[in-house]
């Protein structure tokens, strides 16, 4: 009895410490939400109110009004990059997991190395190359550029999963006369859904959050993703904190969704297979 009580106390203490850690880590986010629900005037009041005194969504509707287009632009680009990435990654992962090529090790090595290349190196070259191809200030250009965040990562994640699939299933399909493509489409892809979903979600997130390519591959604001529009908005209206925070909250939504969807899935190797950024 006494022992159990002590155990309960320790466990309660652990939860308390964990809550403090989480609280400290998420404090800036809390503060962003609070500020986004204030009026401009309230955001400058001192001492600052820790809760929004009279919560208002004015900043949000203002953001939808002024930056709704950018949110849509980001969405289109992120979806595009995800689709491109999956179309290339899934067959490649299938091949790397199941077939033996002489170049398999080289391709795998390249995928690891590709993720270490600083974005600014690619961005600078893309700018020059895309200028010649008329791909600056275009959706297609940004989709292609952003997909470089996703493809190496996706191949590695999906391949690692496919290697774990029972070999017998593929053998059985072959005995039944299925083609390689048929096996991929009807057996491997459905079985690999969790990994493909993970790859898709992260691809979307990487492209959605891209700032570097948006910055380097735009010379006008004709195609302006949300990250770039927040950046330029900040340059013009540094002190409009409620609106800036509302925009930040909008921009953070995909991260929140991703966290909920793959809560169980995100584990160690997530990051080993892919470097964010």
């Amino acid at each position, binding site marked *: 009895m006494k022992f159990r009580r002590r155990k309960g106390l320790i466990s309660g203490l652990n939860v308390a410490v964990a809550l403090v850690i989480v609280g400290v880590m998420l404090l800036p986010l809390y503060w962003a939400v609070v500020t986004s629900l204030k009026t401009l005037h309230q955001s400058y009041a001192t001492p600052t109110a820790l809760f929004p005194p009279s919560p208002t969504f004015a900043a949000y509707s203002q953001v939808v009004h002024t930056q709704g287009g950018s949110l849509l632009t980001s969405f289109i680009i992120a979806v595009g990059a995800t689709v491109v990435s999956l179309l290339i990654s899934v067959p490649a992962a299938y091949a790397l997991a199941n077939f033996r090529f002489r170049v398999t090790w080289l391709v795998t090595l390249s995928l690891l190395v590709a993720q270490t290349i600083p974005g600014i190196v690619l961005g*600078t070259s893309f700018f020059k190359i895309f200028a010649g191809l008329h791909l600056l200030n275009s959706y297609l250009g940004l989709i292609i550029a952003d997909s470089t965040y996703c493809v190496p990562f996706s191949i590695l994640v999906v391949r690692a999963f496919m290697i774990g699939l029972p070999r017998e299933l593929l053998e059985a399909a072959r005995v039944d006369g299925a083609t390689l493509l048929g096996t991929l489409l009807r057996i491997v892809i459905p079985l690999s859904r969790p990994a493909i979903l993970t790859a898709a979600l992260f691809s979307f997130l990487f492209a959605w959050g891209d700032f570097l390519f948006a910055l380097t591959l735009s010379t006008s604001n004709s195609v302006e993703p949300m990250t770039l529009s927040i950046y330029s908005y900040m340059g013009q209206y540094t002190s409009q904190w409620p609106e800036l925070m509302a925009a930040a909250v909008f921009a953070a939504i995909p991260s929140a969704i991703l966290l909920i969807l793959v809560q169980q899935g995100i584990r160690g190797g997530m990051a080993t297979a892919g470097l964010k950024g």
Partner: protein
Amino acid sequence: MPEAPEIGATHTGVLASSAKPERGDRARGPRRLFRGRVLFLLPAVIYLLALFAYPIVYGILLSVRQSSVITFVHNTGGFVGLTNYRLAVTNPLLPSVVWNTAIFMVGSIVAQFSIGFLIALFFTRRFPLSGFLRSLILVPWLLPGVVTGIILRMMFDPNIGMVNQVLSNLGLIHSPIEWFANTHLALLVIVLANIWIGIPFNMLLLHGGLQDIPHELYEAARVDGAGRLRTFRSITLPVMRPVIAVVLVLGFIYTLKAFDIVMIMTGGGPMNATQLLSTWAYTLSFYNLDFGQGAAVGTIMMAISLVCAFAYVRTYRGELRS
């Protein structure tokens, strides 16, 4: 490693995959079959060549060509050897950029690794909601860099920032600190921002590694009467060494690439006090329109990264053998 890799493949899962001898069909199929198989890999190979290999080579070529505003549009600059590298290395800004980058990297990596490790150790305890609370800590890592940058920019804002307010409530300061006007403080702030992003990532990998330590090892240590510190030093650290190596190498590569938060929070200022190699490469190319020098800096960064990448791959191999 017998178990199937989980979604997203655990750390060891990825390793296992590169470790296993290729699982392809034992007997090589006929030529026709081979050609069919290659088609699955071909798009990815072309992709890698077009969007990684070509731009990298292009960047290196850019760095050995003359570049000026005139050659800006048409890439017609002549070959100038290592001139751009010489210009970059003798650039009066270089020492401070290298210094800033070093401070930024060492500060970020040391802090995010230690704090991440402590949190990871803490979360090996069993208590209600631990999984849920642990996953909440990942949030800063999942946020787009621009979001992180702008939120922390506000936290440190001299007028409405929470940081100044807390410091002044604690009686530590009497007038608001201008975080972004002071060269030292601005660098400190971007390091803190990067630590905030890096902690979850370090915690995630280290926690995964800690979970993989067989429980029997700890049992044995306890039977032998080893204390906590002793157990940590003699069991946890040695077993975790490969994971720690991977975490540090990834931290290095990732920190070297950092760009978004710096651009958003300080733009490299004040007076280049937060100019890092990455933001400097950008500034040289896109502000000064000196693509040659910008590409030279980029190529140097890439070389540093590649050295690290090979350390990374070697770590993989080292872990496989043991």
